[in-house]
């Protein structure tokens, strides 16, 4: 197993280089002028300003030259400077990643726990009313667009009933705790601010549920299918013949096997959400990677766009690696095979 991990880690830089190259080229061939966001539309007629800006940002050089410089800098841990925020992209990403991770982790917990629970109910009571209800709930999560769900959720729970707070990570009037980890739930606790912790948790509820519901749909359908397969196996009848209670058979014997194929989906979804939570982040004014990506794309902020893409690619590679390790942990047959 260790050999596989090491081999994967060694290949990773090359995969990343591929991602970088593709993104870099795509960004270059996009129509539009990044100078608009650098110096503003009004200055575009001013030849002197344009020339200075081009020289300052390296836009006067040829594409191959720019590519070489970018890769060289990247190899030294420099992702360039954002046209828009005028900050190093690495710093921008580092600032925003924790917000996204906090949201995505909560959404994954909602999605995985909810999806698995739905799948167990579905599989145990196959073709009954409960199964149909659970499947409908899962299907809705997969079908309903998150931007619409987000708006409805805000309208119902925040505007109408005032049960939960509106967009953002904290109440506008609240003082944010000093940033240590960037995770609001952790930082408020580190600062000993219990009220802040509760506030942050309440702000997380709606976006996590909305994002988690979409995850729930995929997880529920995957796990239901593999649960049905597993429940027909002899070792399940055997477990029942031992006198084990139904719940024990379902969780201890069936789920332990049924979750193995679902691990792939969980890993993949997690990586996808890091950059794929755009819509939810936008609607809930969540200062994360998704909203950063949208702003970067809107202003043709090449370094930021490429930076987000590299982060997303890295997320996938790491998630894949973790999935493989999790497979080996969950399935003893995989341990020697790999």
């Amino acid at each position, binding site marked *: 197993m260790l050999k596989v991990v090491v081999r994967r880690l060694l290949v990773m830089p090359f995969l990343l280089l591929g991602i970088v190259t593709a993104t870099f080229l795509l960004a270059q061939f996009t129509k539009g002028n990044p100078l608009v966001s650098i110096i503003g539309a009004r200055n575009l007629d001013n030849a002197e300003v344009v020339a200075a800006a081009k020289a300052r940002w390296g836009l006067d050089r040829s594409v191959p030259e720019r590519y070489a410089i970018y890769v060289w800098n990247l190899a030294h841990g420099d992702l360039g400077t954002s046209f828009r925020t005028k900050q190093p992209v690495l710093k921008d990403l580092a600032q925003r990643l924790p917000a996204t991770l906090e949201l995505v982790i909560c959404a994954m917990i909602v999605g995985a726990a909810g999806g698995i629970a739905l799948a167990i109910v579905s599989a145990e009571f196959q073709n009954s009313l409960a199964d149909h209800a659970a499947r409908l709930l899962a299907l809705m999560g997969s079908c309903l667009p998150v931007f619409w769900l987000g708006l409805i959720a805000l309208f119902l729970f925040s505007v109408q009933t005032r049960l939960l707070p509106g967009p953002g990570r904290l109440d506008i009037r609240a003082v944010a705790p000093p940033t240590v980890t960037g995770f609001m739930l952790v930082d408020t606790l580190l600062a000993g601010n219990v009220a802040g912790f509760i506030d942050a948790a309440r702000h997380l509820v709606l976006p996590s549920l909305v994002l988690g519901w979409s995850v729930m749909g995929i997880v529920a359908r995957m796990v239901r299918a593999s649960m049905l397969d597993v429940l027909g*196996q*002899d*070792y399940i*009848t*055997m*477990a*029942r*013949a*031992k*006198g*084990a*209670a*139904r719940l024990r058979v379902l969780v201890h*014997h069936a789920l*332990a*096997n049924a979750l*193995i194929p679902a691990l792939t989906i969980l890993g993949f979804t997690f990586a996808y959400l890091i950059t794929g939570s755009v819509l939810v982040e936008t609607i809930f004014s969540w200062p994360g990677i998704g909203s950063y990506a949208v702003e970067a794309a809107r202003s043709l902020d090449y370094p930021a766009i490429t930076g987000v893409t590299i982060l997303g690619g890295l997320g996938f590679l790491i998630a894949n690696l973790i999935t493989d390790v999790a497979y080996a942990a*969950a*399935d*003893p*047959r995989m341990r020697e095979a790999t």
Partner: protein
Amino acid sequence: MAAPLLDIKGLAVTIPTRAGERAAVSNVDFSVDRGEVVGLVGESGSGKSLSMLAVMGLLPRHFGVSGSIRFDGEEIAGAPERRLRALRGRRLAMVFQDPMTALNPVKTIGAQITEMIRLHNAGMSRAQVRQKALSLLEAVAIPAPERRFDQYPHEFSGGMRQRVVIAIAIANDPDLLIADEPTTALDVTIQAQIIEIFARLRAERGMAIVLITHDLGLVAGLADRMNVLYAGRIAERGPVGPLFAAPRHPYTASLLAAVPSIDDVSERLHAIPGTPPSLSERLPGCAFAPRCDFAVPLCRTSLPDLTRIGGSVVACHRANDPALATLLKEPA
């Protein structure tokens, strides 16, 4: 005589199909005394496994079960799940056909044995449970049980897995062990080892065993009595010796004739022509009539009742026909 350990009367199992409920097992009577080995013989689909799963209460919910199943005097057909759970694994245990699929692939062998012990012995300490599990592995002749304890099923051969399955089944010294084709998936030398284990279990622990099989050799070697099932009904039942020597039912005779014999010099195996009727084409008369060389018109219109002849019980219209009895003794 004491009441039998297991006493089944008029057992019927129905399976819902698109065309409606179909009877897979009908009117099966069956009993097992303490310490007795009873064979349950028949082709695939004859209802042998279904009737025994019905005893364990392990049939899918949508299957219909009717009739009476008395275990040690207690009616367990339709008993609440809680009651059945207490019996399963404790007094009633089962060995499954395919050792490759009967063990949970993601749990260690040790965990799967200790689960069986723990479920029914809440008071036992961890060390005691482990000790007991190790001694069980020893009882079924698994070498180096200490090392094997923490291994997974895929690290065991088929024969070893079947022995583990047996070790699990006998963990709590059940009164009745139901063995569903315990040797079918194994090669011949391993079969012999498994049979030996069963013979020992019976001798040492006085365990009653129901042997579900289509292997008549296994029945001859191990069982006291046998029941022949055809298309979900009892065709013939009786003590093994007389039944093998003088079968009364043409189906039993054909089964015996189909067993290849070392003395038989003919090159062809005796097969029974045709196939058993499927669930949807059950006939008004005797289900075996279409394949029977001795069928008379009555056989196709009316279902034969079980009649007692000597020590046996036979469901055949011609069971009392002396001419048939002679014919069956010397199979074609």
